[in-house]
């Protein structure tokens, strides 16, 4: 009972804070919606409203260069009362999604999957934060709050990813697969999370059943789950096809934009300036290289960290927050939601101070440099570009360092005598 009361207090505090921000500062949501760090061309709330306006006025929003989001979002938001008349309805939806995401993170924390999976138990697993702390770390993260107030549609993707992970960590294959299908449908890149989530599911089911007979080999399991996943995505696409007047136009306008990057609006990622400055004849080649680079981590991490699929998911989310085509701080907040699950390896990390300082530095200077470039005219594009480089570098140091810590932790299981000693990699 005490546990539930803490949870209630946490959730109500988070809701109250968000409502306060929405109501006390009515211009804040629109201000944050306009920030390039939060709203990208594929998630912006303003573009969603434009798409919705065109959709409700019988103009195909996909026959234009503004709206690049999934069709189901249109039907979802057309059910809500009109935003200009009732802004609070939208606000409440976003707050609910945030709370659901926090709930999913806490469910993951409660499974204890991060400390001990089927194949691996960390010697440090007792050093951990409980689920309330992890939920609070997510809900009161300034990045999460800013994302919630700015209302980009990436929060739906984040919520779906967290649910997919939470359900996989509890062995609920069907729900997990469906949630992941929804996330992939909304923003394409979560497709890459499929292999580690599949293993996470498989491990958890084995752990629950304690036998492989019922489940069969991992390959058989994988094939059935893949079929379910493809079926879920197919049905989502088919529903979209029917609600957009039987047209496949939306495929090019949503996924094509993610793949080909026609809209070069600045964001915190590395793609936009690279492809502004890229020579025309090499553009396609480097688009391929960038996507291949993004996908290359999946195989390596899944194989090397076979014993800890949840950590593969976490690290991949961190990598996506740096290297996906249109990243924003909402992707960073998703990574930072899962990272506290690995509290037990924090003592093994080497560059914590450096990485955190870099992130703070970029967070504070990013908006300032953007202002210098776009509004003041006293700086040029290189100012903001340099800050995105620093930001990406800071995040990749955290990702790399946490990976080092987990591997070190794993190594110490076979070499317990090496605890606390200097190591080398050969």
């Amino acid at each position, binding site marked *: 009972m005490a546990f539930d009361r803490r949870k209630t207090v946490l959730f109500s505090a988070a809701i109250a804070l968000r409502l306060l921000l929405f109501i006390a500062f009515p211009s804040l949501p629109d201000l944050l919606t306009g920030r390039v760090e939060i709203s990208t061309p594929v998630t912006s709330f303003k573009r969603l409203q*434009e798409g919705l306006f065109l959709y409700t006025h019988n103009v195909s929003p996909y026959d234009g260069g503004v709206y690049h989001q999934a069709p189901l979002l249109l039907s979802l938001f057309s059910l809500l009362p009109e935003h200009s008349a009732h802004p609070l309805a939208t606000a409440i939806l976003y707050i609910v999604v945030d709370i659901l995401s926090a709930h999913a993170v806490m469910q993951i924390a409660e499974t204890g999957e991060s400390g001990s999976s089927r194949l691996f138990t960390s010697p440090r697993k007792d050093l951990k934060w409980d689920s309330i702390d992890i939920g609070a770390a997510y809900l009161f993260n300034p990045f999460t709050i800013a994302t919630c107030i700015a209302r980009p549609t990436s929060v739906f993707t984040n919520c779906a990813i967290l649910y997919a992970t939470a359900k996989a960590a509890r062995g609920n294959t069907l729900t997990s697969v469906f949630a992941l299908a929804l996330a992939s449908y909304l923003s394409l890149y979560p497709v890459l999370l499929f292999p580690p989530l599949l293993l996470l599911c498989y491990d958890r089911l084995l752990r629950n059943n304690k036998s492989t007979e019922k489940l069969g080999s991992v390959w058989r399991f994988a094939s059935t789950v893949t079929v379910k996943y493809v079926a879920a995505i197919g049905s989502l696409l088919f529903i979209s096809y029917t609600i957009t007047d039987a047209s496949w136009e939306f495929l090019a306008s949503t996924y094509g934009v993610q793949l080909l990057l026609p809209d*070069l609006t600045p964001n915190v990622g590395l793609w936009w*300036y690279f492809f502004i400055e*890229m*020579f025309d004849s090499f553009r396609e080649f480097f688009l391929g290289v960038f996507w291949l680079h993004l996908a290359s981590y999946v195989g390596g991490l899944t194989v090397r960290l076979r014993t800890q699929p949840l950590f593969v998911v976490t690290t991949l989310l961190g990598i996506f927050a740096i290297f996906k085509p249109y990243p924003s701080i909402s992707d960073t907040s998703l990574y930072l939601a899962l990272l506290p699950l690995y509290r037990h390896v924090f003592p093994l990390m080497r560059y914590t101070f450096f990485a955190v300082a870099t992130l703070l530095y970029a967070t504070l200077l990013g908006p300032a440099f953007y202002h210098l470039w776009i509004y003041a005219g006293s700086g040029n594009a290189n100012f903001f570009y340099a800050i995105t480089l620093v930001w990406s570098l800071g995040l990749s140091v955290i990702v790399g360092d946490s*990976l*080092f810590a987990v591997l070190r932790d794993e190594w110490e299981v076979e070499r317990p005598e*090496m605890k606390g000693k200097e190591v*080398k*990699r050969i």
Partner: protein
Amino acid sequence: MIFLYILTFFLGSVCAAADYHERLVLRPLPRGSLLASFDFRSNASASSIEKQNYQYFPRSLGQILQHAHTRELHLRFSLGRWDAETWGSRPWNGRKEGGTGVELWAWVEAENDEEAAARWTTLTNALSGLFCASLNFIDSTRTIRPAISFEPSGHHSEATLSKLHLLHGTLPREPVCTENLTPFLKLLPCKGKAGISSLLDGHKLFDASWQSMSIDVRPVCSSDSNCVLEMGQTVDMVLDIERSKRHRDNPIPRPVAPEELACDTSKPYASSDACYPLDSTSEQPWSLSEIFGRPMKHSCPLTDSEGEGAETVCIEVPHERQVYATAGSTEHKRPDGFSRCYKLSEISDFDISLPQQTLSTSHPLSKPPLYAERSFTGYGQERGGVQTLLTNPSQTDSIEFIYLESLPWFMKPYLHTLKASLINGLRGSSSSDNVDTSSTSIIQEIFYRPALDRRRGTQLEVRLIVPPASTAALTYDFDKAILRYTEYPPDANRGFDVAPAVVRVLSSSSSFTSDSIFEKDQSESELPVQDSIYLRTTSLLLPLPTPDFSMPYNVIILTSTVMALAFGSIFNLLVRRFVGADEVEGLNVSGIKGKVLARIRKVKERFDNVKKIRTNATSHTNGVEKEKGNEGKKNQ
């Protein structure tokens, strides 16, 4: 296709007379300006064109139109801004006017949209060569297909009409200049050598406060189904009389001598050392040769020699104004009291001269039915807004019109922010407290075609009704896209030009049939759409965020470095094994670093041996131990 074309026109008698008309109308405007409006019209019967006999119709243009299956063509070259508040309503009611730069619209006969687009490309490329303009840059991003703003002004049979596609393209950045005037004059039968066209000179035309050249080609059928292809060319310009009179060899304005200054000495603060200019009450003196830099040559022999058609120069001044014309020309005063026309001599040059004179009556200035002003709102290079103020000056009638915008693709408007609010009361007295936000009553209809990145521009057509004596403010927000660095023009920080908005006034009270001479020319051929009035706003300059053009290599290198760092560190961790730092001593020798360190260690040991010989040997072993300790630290 050609067969259809023939069918359409091959209905009348074979020998329809081809004819040619030209007329220059001069109208003094307030504040020392002069509107000079040149009009040239030539007809060629459809049957003669079919026989490749173009007569007065320019062959070069005729063949292009035939090849591109263009049934009606309108081409405009314009510069400057028509100051409606001072100069009143526009010549030709704005029908012969274009937006700043080049504007082209045509009805192309085609079976489907793709064929129409292909023929449109053919047409723009051919016209580009003919007129030395960058018309070939009117690609799909600059082409729109207006639904309600334009209607064919010629006669088309029902069968043809169903296959006609209207395409409209603009080039707001095109600098209109002499190289466009020369081919324009070459299309005329007298080629600028005789008649009123001999006055046209690039130096004066492009020095005007506002100028517009137009070419219209349309089929015109008389009541007995006798069709001709009519080619209309006009040049309208507003000249500043003072400026035009400056000598061409000495164009720099000099200070006026103190005794020639007209000073207002009635002011209490007037003194001998300061001059407060006196508003001129009298009309300025001018003559044709002073203003255009040369006198007009004798009449073009192709014009009519008798009747109204022979009176090729008209001037709209009150009858009391003294006008001296050269001998050999005949003057004919119109009964309206405000205009007179001249028939030119067939052999000698022509000039008219008007002395300085104080007049008791002046030509009444007709008021335009609508004022339109468009501007950007907001600041910064990320997003902005567009605000158009549309003022209905009439006290009694509401006005209905269509507002057309053709925006480039990198300007991304948000249609859900489109609002029309009413500011009651005329401009200047717009008090914010009686702002009426009932936009639904103003906006009647919207046609919208959103832009596609790098493929298509935005097309927005709005039908509005503005009540009498009020101003409507049409606003919307837009985002500025950032482009690839190769897509910026050479002077990227200058900004991008946005084509002027076109306003077509649909209904207005009958009080706007003002331009007597202009109207008469049009009413001869009873054509379907003559009642609509057009006006255009100025073009806008849109600044876009720019990348640093000098560093593609640096960006590629720096971004790749960050990616390589992440990729390298992560895969380094994934593929290598951990070992304890103190276990790797032996392994170290295999690497280059290890080898180097081993060599250094050996050298150091030798030094230590030398030292050992020189000094007491007690600390020898400790020293080596120390070395080893340092070595270990370095390895980490």
